[in-house]
């Protein structure tokens, strides 16, 4: 039937156009990110040659290296050259580690990924129920306790909590592993395949290593989880309060539905819609790598990597890190948009 065939063709065309527009958006975002970072890097008052040669090198060596690094070329030309290399998959070499940037990031990012993922699981796993509880018990002491608990995690400096946690749980009680991702004894026995040590240990059936990695992970992850718990529980409470005041809740109660069902299956499900944005934002924030947490726990993650590179004007590394962090955000935003549309039919744009 010609009409139906025409409809499918129109739908396919629309899908193609959407996909095309989507790709353009992604490319533009990356380009914007890179351009701004590149410009910032070159404008920053740190001499990259200083990092390569040190403070005591001769003037001739400095001039020579400046020429070798292409720093005398005009800015846009340097950017153009960099872009060309990136398109071929070459993200340059890090000045600080002498390795290709992506090799370094392939080591640093999984460390942060493991930590952030466990952290957000703790944050959501505890934060959402606590937020719901506080909303249901609005104004009572439960509400206040949840509020104060959350605020402590959010407003107390994370390095302080981290150090106190280490002093208590590691130094005094010995319940958790110390700073660092894994004990020194596993340095030569645990093969680092994916960078996610929990996964590597499990795949290699080294369960003692697995337990050891977990014992090192649990304290910093709990810290990050506690930190995001504050936000997540507050926003859950806020959204739940909004939902619980809607007419459909009254109607549901009138219909005779149990409170538990109303709260968890209806109100929370609706509150999840904006909550998903909050959670993905929190996760993205954790994935950026927290410099202070990583410093206190000697965790070789992305936060330390980017900070160190930035302070040494190691622009290839900074750009590489920006690309990774940017990709994470873009990916998570996409996920949140998709989840949004899935959870709330009202947001589908006609």
């Amino acid at each position, binding site marked *: 039937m010609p009409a139906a065939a025409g409809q499918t063709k129109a739908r396919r065309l629309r899908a193609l156009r959407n996909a095309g527009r989507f790709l353009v958006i992604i490319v533009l975002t990356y380009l914007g990110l890179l351009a*701004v970072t590149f410009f910032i890097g070159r404008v920053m008052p740190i001499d990259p040659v200083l990092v390569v040669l040190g403070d005591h090198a001769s003037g001739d060596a400095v001039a020579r290296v400046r020429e070798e690094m292409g720093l005398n070329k005009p800015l846009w030309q340097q950017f153009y050259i960099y872009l060309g290399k990136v398109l071929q998959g070459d993200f340059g070499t890090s000045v600080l580690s002498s390795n290709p940037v992506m090799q370094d990031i392939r080591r640093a990012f999984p460390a942060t990924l493991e930590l952030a993922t466990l952290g957000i699981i703790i944050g959501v796993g505890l934060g959402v129920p606590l937020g719901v509880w506080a909303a249901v018990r609005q104004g009572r002491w439960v509400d206040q306790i949840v509020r104060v608990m959350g*605020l402590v995690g959010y407003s*107390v*400096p994370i390095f302080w909590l981290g150090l106190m946690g280490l002093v208590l749980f590691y130094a005094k009680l010995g319940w958790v592993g110390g700073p660092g991702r894994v004990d020194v004894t596993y340095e030569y026995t645990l093969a680092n395949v994916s960078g996610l040590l929990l996964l590597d240990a499990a795949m290699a059936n080294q369960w003692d290593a697995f337990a050891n990695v977990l014992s090192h992970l649990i304290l910093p992850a709990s810290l990050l989880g506690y930190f995001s718990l504050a936000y997540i529980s507050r926003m859950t409470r806020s959204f739940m309060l909004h939902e619980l005041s809607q007419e459909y809740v009254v109607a549901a109660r009138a219909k005779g539905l149990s409170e538990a069902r109303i709260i968890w299956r209806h109100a929370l499900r609706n509150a999840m819609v904006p909550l998903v944005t909050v959670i993905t934002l929190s996760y993205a924030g954790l994935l950026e790598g927290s410099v202070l947490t990583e410093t206190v726990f000697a965790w070789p993650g992305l936060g330390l990597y980017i900070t160190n590179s930035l302070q040494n004007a190691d622009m290839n590394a900074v750009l590489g890190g920006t690309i990774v962090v940017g990709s994470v955000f873009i990916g998570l935003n996409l996920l949140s948009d998709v989840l949004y549309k899935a959870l709330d039919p009202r947001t589908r744009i006609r």
Partner: protein
Amino acid sequence: MNTTPVTSKPRLHDWLMSDRPASRRQAAWGRAYGAWRVFMRNRLAMLGLGIVLALILVAIFAPLLAPYSPTVGDLRTTRLLPPSGPFWLGTDDQGRDILSRLIHGSRITLFVVVLVAVLAAPIGLLVGTVAGYAGGLVDAALMRITDIFLAFPRLILALAFVAALGPGIENAVIAIAITAWPPYARMARAETLTIRQTDYIAAVRLIGASPWRIVLHHIMPLCLSSLIVRVTLDMAGIILTAAGLGFLGLGAQPPTPEWGAMIANGRLYVLDQWWVAAAPGAAIFLVSLAFNLVGDGLRDALDPKGVK
């Protein structure tokens, strides 16, 4: 309806609470007054407000309240003393009285927090609601810009700004505000997407309201409550971000007693001279709690469908 005879001087309370406001202004004032009454009944919110007012008073009268100078200390005699009679909160690594520094620092902290909130929140709200309501190309463009800002490792932006503008607390404020608005925009957009499909908005559109009017007068107020909650929660985060900048040597210049800088300094003494970081930390916590309580009270008071 109010049937008591109208006296020669109508009580202000009756005028505000009247069911039949004579003008739009009276209606607006009445709404504000009603919200204030709801707020007042919330004891915790009033406690929060009290703390905030106390903070403002301390900031104004800082030189009168502080027992010592915040910038002068003696390395040899008064360094790193624990809390005691002469120094209620102890002294720091330069021998300066922490209490005095805390009091003087309240000015700067208030300045930073209020300025960042005032700069970042409206920008984020505007961008988010416009993007959410307009859709299409405007939405895509605005969200791309927001994403670029969000996707930036915060440090790069902060370092770049300070490199361009130089040290000092005002530049730190700008740097922090620049990184603070994108989450607000994202949230506002998410809420707008849900709100725009409601019958309420459809009705307003039918009446003939222009898109700008809809966004400004109808959508924004609905997004306001969750935004307020978020901003008040962020107050502590802003101060700690300033501390984070202080770790990198940006922002407040020594010997400015900015609370974040005090915490950054106290980090080295956390294990043995805990009071150096504990005092500003507790202050930040208290202020954050106060703003949070006020924010919750505001949310409850402003939400037309508040549970209470």
